[in-house]
């Protein structure tokens, strides 16, 4: 099982990615997907701008995916993370894990997201609805706590 990792400016299509992962297989019992979307923060946000570290972003997510693959009996694993400007309601990140059984698929997808949040070199900056550029989004301690659940 080789994880699929993509860092891209373009949007992605969950159904097409699941179809690619599952296509023709009859041994998959469970597919868990996580899609992260840009929220409008009560109407105050016009867009998020996602900066990333090209090269390291792919490498780091691939390392996280390898850890997940070593830890759970997965049949497929995919992570896509967008960069650039993303408007409220738009998709930012996608993780899909497939396995024979549901527990492995749930835990692997959950683990991938916790580690993506704390280890993948991406930074979000806010563009506000009033036309001004807001600040850089601050990292949350609860994300570090979430990642530590897997240690």
């Amino acid at each position, binding site marked *: 099982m080789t994880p699929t990792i993509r860092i891209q400016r373009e949007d992605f299509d969950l159904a097409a990615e699941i179809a690619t992962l599952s296509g023709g297989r009859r041994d998959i019992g469970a597919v868990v997907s996580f899609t992260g979307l840009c929220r409008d923060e009560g109407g105050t946000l016009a867009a998020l701008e996602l900066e990333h570290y090209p090269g390291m972003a792919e490498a780091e997510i691939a390392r996280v995916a390898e850890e997940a693959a070593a830890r759970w009996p997965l049949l497929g694993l995919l992570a896509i993370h967008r960069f650039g400007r993303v408007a409220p309601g738009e998709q930012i990140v996608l993780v899909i894990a497939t396995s024979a059984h549901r527990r492995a698929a749930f835990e692997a997808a959950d683990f991938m997201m916790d580690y993506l949040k704390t280890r993948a070199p*991406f930074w979000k900056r806010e563009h506000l609805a009033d036309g001004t550029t807001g600040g850089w989004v601050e990292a949350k301690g609860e994300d570090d706590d979430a990642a530590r659940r897997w240690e």
Partner: protein
Amino acid sequence: MTQASDTMAPAAQTRTVRLVYFAWVRERVGRAEEQVELPAEVATVLDLVRWLKARDEGYAAAFADETLVRAAINQTHVKPGTSLDGAREIAFFPPMTGG
């Protein structure tokens, strides 16, 4: 520190490395990347941070909180005490907020 630990590093007392900066570290430093000659006494990530802070106010502002800024060597996360041996590209950036 007398051994040449990497074929990319010169055997001399100074080494040329590429520094890259992201997000508000990049903004405070005032550039996205640069080449620097590291003196021999700059041995760890924390040594480099302190050496950069002494250069000008932009660096000093970026690294004001030495424990906040994260670093990577050759695109792998490292800690402040990590040696710069073998480093070709050293990155500094805020805590990640992707996902």
